[in-house]
């Protein structure tokens, strides 16, 4: 089984019809579709009805850039969309916010994706696509609590911010954070 096909629609289609390999790759890509679009309903409206016009070229680009497809995937998707506006899609502020929030939530919900996350309780993300605010997401603070998402003042102008960055928070309350770092691939 060529596992690239789990992230590559054209390779998935290259398997013969009626094979387990093709069905498995379709299933993996369906899961990926949900990972991409479920947290971003307004994104799907830009590529309705099935999201293909965004999903397929993004996955080609993501493979070329060797994106890990981890928590930072939605931010890379946003940046890719901003840079490929030649096809005339205007990205609404709501969609930009949804994409950054999706990345922050994925970080906060995925304790073990990066083991270093375990000793941190929250993440802040500032993006040049978000003028004037930073997205924060905090892991559940109690065993029966929910994770917290907050839009915070700050972030600066897109001109001032060279590239998107994140910072981790170790304190249980407030957003005092460590150093800003580039968004990982």
């Amino acid at each position, binding site marked *: *089984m060529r*596992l*690239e096909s*789990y*992230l590559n629609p054209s390779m998935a289609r290259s398997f013969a019809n*009626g*094979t*387990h*390999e*093709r*069905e*498995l790759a*379709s*299933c*993996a*890509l369906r*899961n*990926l579709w949900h*990972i991409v679009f479920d947290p971003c309903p307004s994104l799907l409206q830009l590529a309705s009805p099935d999201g293909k016009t965004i999903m397929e070229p993004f996955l080609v680009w993501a493979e070329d850039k*060797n*994106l*890990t*497809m*981890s928590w930072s995937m939605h931010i890379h998707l946003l940046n890719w969309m901003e840079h490929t506006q030649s096809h005339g899609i205007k990205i609404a502020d709501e969609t930009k916010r949804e994409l950054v929030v999706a990345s922050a939530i994925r970080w906060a*919900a*995925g*304790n*073990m*994706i990066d*083991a*270093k996350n*375990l000793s941190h*309780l929250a993440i802040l993300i500032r993006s040049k696509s978000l003028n004037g605010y930073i997205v924060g997401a905090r*892991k*559940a603070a*109690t*065993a*029966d*609590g*929910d994770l917290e998402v907050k839009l915070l003042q700050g972030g600066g102008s897109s001109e001032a911010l060279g590239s998107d960055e994140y910072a981790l928070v170790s304190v249980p309350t407030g957003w005092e954070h460590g150093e800003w770092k580039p968004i990982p691939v």
Partner: protein
Amino acid sequence: MRCGVNLTSPRVVPYVQELLDDSSADFCEILIDNFLHLDPCQVRDVIGDVPVGFHIMWSRFMEREESELQFIARQVREWVKFLKPVYISDHLAQFSFRGRMLPLLAEVDYQRVYGRACQRVSFWQHELGCRLLIENFPSTLDKDGCQVDFYRQLQDETGCGLLFDCSNAVIAQLNCGVDISKWESLALSTPNYHIAGFRKTSGEPSIAIDTHDVLIEEQSYGVLKSIFEENRLSEEEITVVVERDANIDVLAWKEELDSVRKIYGSIS
């Protein structure tokens, strides 16, 4: 026999509490990934004084750097001290490919990874400070049924155990034709079981996928029944976790727990 539920995230605590409070379940398997940043006493407070197991999903012990595994293990050991789990279980699967996370867990090539699996299971057990149970994979492409022999040899070599998922064995049979009887001696050597619902894809050929979001199939109950009939372990040792991760209907979950108890009661 302890009949348990799986606690997958803080969000499902109210459902799990209800099932534990009315004694539908008397065991709780904690998906520790999603709680490890918390103080373990918080989890004890919400589930009460029931025995627990730890289930690990994202250790990725076959892929991750050893230093990261050591870091995770230190955290898990703190939880072990406090909650004293009956077992710790994990998954042997391929989570990423060339550094890229896969949106669907892939089955490893059992023959190719055997040496690494032995080394990594031994290392992970050593770091966790206990024997590890590895869950059987819901096979999709293992046409030769290599998984069963792989697990037998892995146990012999590393001393690890098996967390036998009855539904995953049914899935392997449906997808790959691996006769469930191949699992018999291994399944009877462990006291720890899972059972859950799975879906079949709509394509042709349809594939059974382990989803934990629908009702348990009769075939899975059948596997559990035959294990109960043959298992000579003491009643106190046996745990069965009825897994439900999504699309949670507490009443249906309760009925499934009840079905497991009835099956056990019918043969003991």
